[in-house]
């Protein structure tokens, strides 16, 4: 999923400073799962913002709405009937959702209420960790299901480096050495010989280095 964290309230309050009414829009997908921008977080932020305003002797009219997905135009369209209830939209979706709302409602200021962080998995309740960088050319089949691009601090294709110590990365003792994990996993699978294969330099054009990316499915595209 795409993970996110709410921005500091001070920053959000500065963004919406000129507004007397806002449309606060959450998203039922990734940001709900990582507890950053779902219905519950929308309610909490709404309450906090209103209290912050009332404390200053002003009021803030907040309309709360949570869409099924903010990154799909079909769902963003649902905002048509309520878009005028805010001087601006405050979106708790990831950056994709914020941009989709901004694209649809060109006359309306749209502000982000969360910082989009990374594509990750839940390690345990309340803890999320980065697992994929969307490099566009997946290597997991060669590395025992552990990604050296997302999980090795240096993105080494032929690791580990000299900074690996007792299974941990030199950047932080809490960070596992991805190449230690890869070796352990290959060993468990009886595929140690694969470790000897030298990976050639990666073609990063499939990643962000090739500019903004698109997927066009001819069978589906309208």
């Amino acid at each position: 999923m795409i993970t996110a964290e709410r921005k500091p309230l001070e920053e959000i309050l500065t963004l919406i400073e000129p507004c007397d009414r806002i449309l606060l829009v959450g998203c039922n997908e990734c940001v709900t799962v990582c507890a950053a921008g779902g219905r519950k977080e929308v309610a909490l932020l709404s309450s906090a913002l209103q209290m912050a305003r009332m404390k200053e002797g002003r009021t803030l009219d907040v309309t709360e709405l949570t869409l099924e997905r903010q990154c799909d135009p079909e769902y963003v369209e649902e905002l048509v009937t309520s878009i005028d209830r805010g001087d601006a939209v405050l979106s708790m979706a990831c950056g994709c959702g914020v941009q989709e709302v901004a694209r649809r409602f060109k006359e309306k200021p749209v502000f982000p209420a969360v910082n989009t962080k990374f594509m990750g998995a839940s390690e345990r309740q309340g803890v999320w960790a980065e697992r994929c960088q969307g490099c566009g050319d997946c290597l997991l089949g060669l590395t025992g299901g552990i990604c050296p691009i997302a999980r090795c601090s240096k993105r080494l294709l032929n690791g580990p480096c000299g900074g690996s110590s007792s299974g941990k990365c030199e950047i932080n003792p809490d960070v596992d050495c991805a190449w230690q994990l890869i070796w352990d996993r290959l060993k468990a699978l009886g595929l140690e010989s694969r470790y000897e294969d030298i990976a050639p330099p990666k073609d990063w054009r499939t990643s962000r280095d090739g500019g903004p990316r698109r997927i066009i499915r001819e069978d589906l595209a309208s």
Partner: protein
Amino acid sequence: MKEFEPIIVAFCCHYCAYTAADMAGSMRLAYPPNVKIIKVPCSGKVSAIHVMRALEKGADGVMVAGCLEGDCHFKDGNVKAAKRVSQVRRLLDEIGMGPERVEMVTLSAGMGERFARVTGEFTEKIRALGPNPVKETLAGRARAAAASS
């Protein structure tokens, strides 16, 4: 000037604090009439938004009262409640209201005396803090609504 009488909302777990409040009554122990009790099946049923809404609507202090650690009827509802109370305290601190208006307490059903004491202490703490700063705006809004109707 009339002395400020705080409104305290206390979310009380059915298995401990609510019974403890009852026990306080049976023991003829007075606790402040400022405390408005809301009975919940477990303190873990109290979400952060319940506490926030209570303050937003004008409560001066909110207390969440659950079972002693390890004694929750539903295993760890009280531990979850304590985490949510911490979350709300951080949030209130972020908006400049300070964390002191929200507190978590734990007690058992037999602790009537403790219930009377902690609610008394909390009420006095909130009295010293003064009214919830959102109240004045709320009252102004209510006056404006009354004048326009």
